[in-house]
């Protein structure tokens, strides 16, 4: 049942990303969540290559890494997002997608840096 809902979500994100490129990270995240790691990595590649010529949100890249379970990379990109004053970052304290980071001491430190702790 849950699986089915993820598939529906992926279908919606595919449509969204086709309209607005800024939804591509969400799609990547969904692939990662359902175990389609290759597809998620492809999307990450795509995001990195897009970032060569236009702004790609570091916060959203961090989000894809979170979904892939790669915490180190996720923190690396959260720091980048902070440097770039990424607009997504303002919700870092409450974003449910970042759940797996919350127990990590680096997350607390990060919130402190943001003035949110």
């Amino acid at each position: 049942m849950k699986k089915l809902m993820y598939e529906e979500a992926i279908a919606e994100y595919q449509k969204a990303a086709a309209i607005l490129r800024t939804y591509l990270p969400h799609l990547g995240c969904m692939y990662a969540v359902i175990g389609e790691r290759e597809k998620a990595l492809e999307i990450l590649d795509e995001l990195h290559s897009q970032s060569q010529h236009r702004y790609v949100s570091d916060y959203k890249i961090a989000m894809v890494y979170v979904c892939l379970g790669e915490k180190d990379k996720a923190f690396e990109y959260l720091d980048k997002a902070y440097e770039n004053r990424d607009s997504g970052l303002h919700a870092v304290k409450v974003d449910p997608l970042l759940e797996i980071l919350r127990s990590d001491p680096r997350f607390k430190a990060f919130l402190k840096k943001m003035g949110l702790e």
Partner: protein
Amino acid sequence: MGIKCPKCHTDNPSDSRYCRQCAAPLPSSEDISASPTKTVETPTEELTRGTTFAGRYEIIEELGKGGMGKVYRVFDKKIEGEVALKLVKPEIAADKKIIERFRNELKLAREIAHRNVCRMYDLNEEKGIHYITMEYVAGEDLKSTINRVGPLGTGKAVFIARQVCDGLTEAHRLGVVHRDLKPQNIMIDKEGNARIMDFGIARSVKGKGITGSGVRIGTPEYMSPEQVEGKEADQRSDIYSLGVILYEMVTGRVPFDGDTPFTIGIKHKSEIPQDPRELNSQIPEDLSRVILKCLEKEREKRYQSTAEVRSELIHIEKGLPTTDRVIPSRKPATSKEITVTFNIKKLLFPVVAVAAVIVAVVLVWQLTLKKEAVPAVSEKPSIAVLPFEDLSPDKDQEYFCDGLAEELINRLTNVEKLRVPARASAFSFKGKERDFQEIGEKLSVEMVLDGSVRKAGNRLRINVQLVNVADGFPIWSERYERNLEDTFALWDEISLAVVDNLKIVEAYNLYVQGRYFWNRRTEDGLNKAIDYFEQALELDPDYALAYTGIADAYSMLSGYNFLSAHESIPKAKTAALKALEIDKTLAEAYTSLAHIKERYDFDWLGSEEYYKRAIELNPNYPLAHHWYGGLFRVTGRFKKAYEELTKALDAKKLWSWLQITAGHMKSLRWPI
């Protein structure tokens, strides 16, 4: 041989350039003795200073001679104001066809009501002498200016040409082609603004009889090749003449001159003009290109409309160093004798009510969860001008009342994006009781401009109000008290002041359209929104709301990751601070800044303070609640977030511009 001054008739030595008596520029002696292009003069009636002509025009001075006859500055005793009066030479007036043609042309020409066009009034006859009355413009004609100072600076030349373009655009829109545009026909008034004279004359006088008798109307130096060939002129012929004038303004000489009209005509037809930059290296390259394009031999290769020339000139103007630009010296909307002054920015909010329909479209769109709606772009605010009511005890001001309303109709018709019913439909309500809702319905307008005139002694009190048809309440009103000295000037002044204020409607309309696109939250939509806000700022550079629009658009461009914060947030911040600098009580400005503080500065406390201030200033601004709710959410205060978001939804439901108007009335001059 000496030179007689054309103004004071003093004899001057033949090598003089300026009159020794009145310092007026003198034509060179060569011009007088051998000018091939000078209009052939025949004796005509002369009017002497101090005498009264036609029982009402007291002659003040002779202004000059044109192809049609002598022009005088006169005092019209009947309307107690100065006008210009042009006598028509007897040999021209003798041809009934010409007079008839002129009558027809004048009917069209007097429709042109534009600040850059000298208004034509009437054609009349007194004891067999035909004469024309027109607006008197104090100042100097452009030819005299060029003769006096030589080539004009680029900024000044472009400024004048742009104004001439504006006047021509209006005339062309009404189907009137000037046909004899030349610097002698362009007056530069005391404020430095250009006014085109003599619309409708050239065509009337063109005819076999006249050309046969050797009188030339139209000066060869400024004639288009098609006119030289005797072909019908159109708006592109005026564009050619404008090209010649621009050429002369920046180089001090016309592109083609010669010993006879024939040789000049041949050059217009076949000779390539010298690049103006070769004569004056200071001329920017793009201006030179514009001039040469106006001077193309084939009209298909020229600009096809004056609007095209205008936009090129504006582009050039923007590229000039600030020090070279001419800042228009606007005629003040009010004078010492006007008791109450306008304040455009303060009037902004009341006037916003007029765009209620557009706002309704935006709101419907927002409330229907972004379903496609008709864009606001197609909406045009509409205003009917009613004949003013004469409240004078003697009821003797009907002429003034009707004239003022007509002047207003003419002026408002010129305001782009405004629909104004014609005089005939608006005047059908003359003398009837004012039921604004009924009038609004019958004329399909959203607003009615209504007023009254009361004369006491030599004082006139004029009340003007703009009424919102939907609820019958005035959106704004204004009172003027003046001496009845110069009717035309007073009409002019009041109508200009009213139009100036209504331009806010146009700026506001652009702001609303900008917000419509802003709400789409797409990259394209946000960029379009910035375009609209910038256009609004072109109309009113101190338009604080438009700055908040720009701020929010740049914030969103980053918010949706279309741009990095480094690229867009400095721009957003500058715009928001500018809005606040203009209006320290603007909720929208505090909201924009609060959002930037929250999202990009991570200054949570500062942000909260600003949201609070915005809501305090305007508790009905939905975006303030929306974003304040967002701040509560990201800082983990979910209950409060929910409360604010609910308030945002409520505010949206309540959000009518009339309420906002009421909210802002506290800051206005009206007692509430």
